[in-house]
């Protein structure tokens, strides 16, 4: 069921439907095709029907038409439903930056984004930063400067680093450090990461 605008009927939600205490109210609003699908295990299927909403989203250039629960975060959608596991879960509360992705070109923590908030948006993850087997200059710089150890925070660091340069926040080591502070690296590769970002910025290469 798609999310309508402000003229949405009162009782489209599952909990509304449960509150009304009758199945018929819900049935009246449900397309026939979906009802057929709900033949068996009625409870379960109804739960799905009334809890999921449609979502059109582009990830790394690929368009997806999805049907998701509103409570699904963008991070969990990427990792658990789209098998894009390059984006990492480090804290799930916006406190570490491992889940950093670009939404319409802006870096954000995907763990605090409900997926449904991104209708019509274009998401870029680490998998979409460069073409197959060609490294983005930032990825190459991270390898050159050894900007990682265990590698777990790395996709988030790189997505953040690319944005940091694009934003114009890579003018000095001090500025880079401040604007990269939302990405925690427990292995402590910080100085190497800063070197990588500084080099990419100074090279003037298009990121």
């Amino acid at each position, binding site marked *: 069921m798609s999310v309508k605008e402000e003229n949405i009927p009162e009782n489209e939600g599952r909990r509304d439907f449960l509150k009304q205490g009758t199945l018929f109210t819900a049935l009246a609003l449900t397309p026939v095709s979906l009802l057929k699908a709900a033949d068996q295990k009625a*409870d*379960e299927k109804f*739960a*799905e029907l009334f809890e999921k909403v449609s979502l059109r989203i582009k990830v790394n250039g690929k368009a997806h038409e999805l049907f998701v*629960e509103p*409570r*699904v975060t963008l991070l*969990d959608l990427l*990792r*658990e439903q789209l*098998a*894009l*596991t*390059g*984006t*990492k*879960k*480090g*804290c*799930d*509360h916006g*406190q*570490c930056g*491992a889940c950093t992705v670009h939404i319409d070109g802006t870096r954000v923590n995907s763990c605090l984004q409900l997926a449904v908030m991104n209708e019509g948006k274009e998401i870029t993850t*680490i998998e979409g930063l*460069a073409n197959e*087997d060609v*490294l983005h200059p930032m*990825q*190459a710089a*991270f*390898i*050159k400067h*050894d900007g*990682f*150890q*265990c*590698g*777990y*925070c790395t*996709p988030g660091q*790189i997505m953040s680093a690319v944005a940091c340069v694009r934003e114009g926040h890579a003018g000095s*080591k001090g500025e*880079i*450090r*401040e604007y*990269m*502070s*939302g*990405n*925690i*690296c*427990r*292995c*402590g*590769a*910080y*100085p*190497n990461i*800063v070197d990588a970002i500084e080099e990419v910025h100074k090279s003037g290469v298009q990121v």
Partner: protein
Amino acid sequence: MRDKSLLKEDTDRVDGFDKVTGRAKYFAEYQIPGTTYGVLVPSTITKGKITGIDSKAAERAPGVLAVVSHLNRPVVAGYETGKDQGVPNNMMKIFYTDQISFNGQPIAMVVADTYERAVYAATLVKGTYAKEAFETDFEKNLSKAKAPKNPAQASYLRGTADAYKNAAVQIEASYTLPTETHNPMELHGILANWESADKITVYAKTQGVKATQGTIASTFKLPLTNVQVNSEFVGGGFGMALRTWPLEIAAIIAAKQVNKPVKLVITRDQMFTLAGHRPYAFQKVGLGADKDGQLTGITHEAWGHTATYEDFTENVVSMSKFMYNSANVNTTYKIVPLNVGVPIWMRGPGEATGAFALESAMDEMAHSLDMDPIAFRVKNYTEEDPEKSRPYSSKNLKEAYKMGAEKIGWSKRNNKPGTNKDGNWLVGYGMSTGVFNASRGRASAKGILKSDGTLLLQSAASDIGPGTGTGMVQIAHEVLGIPVSKITFELGDSSFPTAPSQGGSATLSTVGSAVSDVCNALKAKIAEMATQSGLSASAKFVDVLKKNNLPSVEVTMESKGGEEQKKYSMYSFSIHFVQVKVNPLTGVVKVSKIVSVGDSGRIVSPKTARSQMVGGAVGGLGMALTEETVMDHRFGRYVNNNFADYHVPVHADIPEIEVVFVNKPDPYINPMGAKGMGEIALIGFSAAVANAVFNATGKRIRTLPITPDKILA
């Protein structure tokens, strides 16, 4: 390790491409059809008994397959062999009884078809409890301390006890280190898949695939060969993945119950309760010296906490026994059982805790003597290990002191505290020494030379971040001369030849030796084949294989150290220098410059070695300035169990870090002459910061972390 052609330099990390592209797969990222999601239900009491688990609502919730607890779990063969038997290390048996020993201990696991459904259903499970009085406050329970089982760890005496009390110059001080939590970036958990009733494959986050295999096999009474553990990439460990945690067993039990693969990824707050921590420690140090600065007595007493249900011990006081030349040394170490999850070694482990105290005390003594802290250490330098009365296999610390002092600008340090300023900020310099056992254990490796010119190496080693594969490839390259790009080292698979867990800075020495031996054996074999087939002994292996019509030649062998380990004391050493700036108004401490010197034999892989030292300094800076796991003892619950309130250093905290290596091969330890450095990178660092803060302000802070409030106090 897919495509090394994109690596520009021989010293680049061999897994760099996978890590920067997001292709490196960590345990939770393997796709097994039909995977279900497990979520733990933690106890909300700290001690007592579970009187009931109401799981009805959860079981009715959409997508829920099971709510597993001690009330309904399947038979776990290893649980049935007696109270403390069957499970290695007397590990807490999860879902075994109604007993609760710490807050957050899992009482159940919900398994559902989607992650969101499992998370929600877990909130519907309600435990009821019979609460009992509990103890979590370390300082209040010091009197309940007990000696560890190992007498050598419990106490030590050389010469006269407490000799410092008779010295011309004496210092006596107490040091406190709060609980710290490892907090690797990757959350812990496991992906468990029973292939059949008695055969299981797991994707784990572990520092030792063989250790994990052994624990699972004995817990479920399976043959080792029926337990396959995969762990190619590990998102940091710092010690917390050195054992199998009960939560991993919980997921394996749940997978058995639902007969589907179960993926468990715990939450960040559960990382504080279920996956270990560095224990709270209290230490007393007494130092005595004559007026010229010769130490005459060292007394070091330490207490650390453990759990009520398992003992955890570490080597807190060891450095005091051998680091400096003192005829009289006595140490004690005791543990205090508390109602907390059991601790586990955290980077540098007990040695880092101990070095904070000893190296702070050394600075206090140097100040009392009005001596330069380096000069004081050199005065008490030992060429021979005074604890074991035998020579060090190699020790180049005098040279290292010089190298570091020059790099940090030690000459700008004023021995009188509080006299050096930069604008309104006070400037201080501090240094400290770090030391950790350098060992060589037992490991096996397989090497396969192929006619396509490549070398494949395999060993059941792990890489939690230091760059194990990169180091091994370097070692093989040095022995065989094959280009780095043609060598692959595979690890993290329990079916590979045995290797020890990655801990105690021993991987490079131990597994590296096996790789070196295997490569030498391959070399000999090729030479032999060459002569036998009429080629010159120095013929290229590709030609030898072709001549013999062989696709490959393979060697597997075990490697271990010999008598040299008994003849010499083997240690890696480090020296840390820091410059700090302290704002006397706000109490803010900024570390403005770091120089770390490593004396750990020959450096095999320069780029990753430097990174490891840098990482240790960052961890040490956290220990010194920001990290503290805080518990509310009224509830037995942590109150800062997240990354916003448990402060791991961020980019903005870290200045330029200069790493210097002595880089002289150790002649005895192993074929490479290389010693480990994972621990020394951090050990002692916190004392260097505390010493620099004293130099800047005249304030001696003996309780970590050195937060702004302590500067203002």
